[in-house]
């Protein structure tokens, strides 16, 4: 069960290398590594001379995408142990960045949403970010009742990791929070929630 057809649902335009960009900053997670590898195949490796790559392997550790990224020979490459550590570094780098630098985000929706929040705090318009969804379709969802955020939600309904309510996942998305909204599905008759469906593998 999913509430779809809501305008705020993000659309990811895909990475593209603008030849006018002075610098490229890539924040990548999991399968997001492949988005850059595909760009190198498509437009050649020249842009890597002016590129910084931050990578967190997350669920695709076993694929060793980090080794392929490191071998690209970008200006800088940094492997982060976790997403929060990567976001912290991204925040510091954006604080020193100049206009003309292009920001590229690729990976799961939850990761893109959180990295976008960091960029927005630096006054970056989300529409000027290059984003590409790769990997799992699992979602980051906020419980609209207790405001608890649950990462990697794959079913709807799901049990809120903070308050335990059964939440229906809606396509209603908050850019400010970088999360979809989950609404209690059995408020009138607690315990009557339908069985969770695996919707976001």
């Amino acid at each position, binding site marked *: 069960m999913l509430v779809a057809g809501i305008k705020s649902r993000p659309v990811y335009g895909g990475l593209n290398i603008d030849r*006018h960009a002075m610098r490229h900053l890539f924040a990548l997670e999991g399968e997001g590594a492949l988005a850059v590898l595909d760009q190198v195949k498509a437009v050649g490796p020249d842009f890597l001379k002016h590129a910084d790559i931050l990578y967190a392997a997350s669920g695709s550790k076993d694929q060793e995408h980090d080794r392929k990224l490191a071998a690209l020979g970008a200006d800088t490459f940094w492997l982060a142990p976790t997403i929060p550590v990567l976001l912290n570094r991204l925040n510091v780098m954006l604080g020193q960045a100049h206009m*003309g630098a292009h920001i590229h985000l690729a990976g799961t929706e939850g990761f893109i949403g959180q990295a976008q929040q960091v960029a927005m705090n630096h*006054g970056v318009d989300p529409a000027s970010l290059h984003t590409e969804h790769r990997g799992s379709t699992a979602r980051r969802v906020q419980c609209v009742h207790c405001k608890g955020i649950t990462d990697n939600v794959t079913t709807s309904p799901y049990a809120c990791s903070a308050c335990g309510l059964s939440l229906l996942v809606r396509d209603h998305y908050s850019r400010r929070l970088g999360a979809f909204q989950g609404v209690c599905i059995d408020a009138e008759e607690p315990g009557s929630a339908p069985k969770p469906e695996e919707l976001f593998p």
Partner: protein
Amino acid sequence: MTINTEMKVRVTEIRQVADKVKRFRFERAGGGPMPVFSGGAHVIVSMRDGKALRRNPYSLMSSPEDTKGYEISVLRVENSRGGSAFLHEKLKEGDELVLSQPVNLFPFDQRGKKHIMMAGGIGITPFIAMMEQMERGGKAFELYYAVRTRSHGAYWKELQQRYGAHRVKIYCDAEKLFIPVGKILANQPLGTHLYVCGPAGMINGVLGKASELGWPRQNLHAEEFLAPPPGKAFQVRLAKSNRAIDVAPHQSILEALEANGVDAPYLCRGGACGQCETGVVSCDGGLEHNDHFLEPDEKASGKKIMICVSRITGNAVTLDL
């Protein structure tokens, strides 16, 4: 429908502020406050000049929080269609005029971390109100102001005194000093927005340079009001109301409609806002698109026209009005 609750005002002060530039202050004819506006806003000034009714947009340059009155600065244009000549030569202190509510098509982006403004000549006016608002809000900003000569440039001295020469930089054509656009834009922190107001050539040059340096279009803002260019006379036919109205060489379609009592929608009257977009049913010649609003493919389609500034090359056009 046009949202246009008009305000009757009295001219309370006229002052020559530079060569060919006069400042006008308007206060409500019946007393009472004017609405607060935001920096970058403009009003449409309606002028009764003999038989002609002129309506021109002017940027507000007074403090956005000064609700006692509004101020505009007007350059006396050679070969003017009549608006600037009327304001400079006929309008006197104590006269009454009609203003529209303020409309802002050139606001600054409140999310920005820093704001760079580039003005050419009389294009300085919206930035005066903007800087007032930015200063109050503690926003980081810089103004780069190009003038022909120091005596032609309005307000540069006052602005430098108020905000400091480190934030207000003057470039004088006559002294062979030009805004070093590339150098400025190559070295701005992430989250900077750029605003340009001046002649079309300057706007295109600056925005083109910014794009070359990788600035995303979300951070680029410009405003240029066009005076409706003159052309040859033609006839406008209104499909819905089944009327035919003649457009004179120095009249825009919108002005011709208004002169004949047709209440067509408009906001900026300068080809920028899109409010007066009108469907074209048929046209016996080409459309002369003079606006900044329609996309190139819309212009090429021949199905839409901005009646505030655009004309036709043929003899008659039928509009969906």
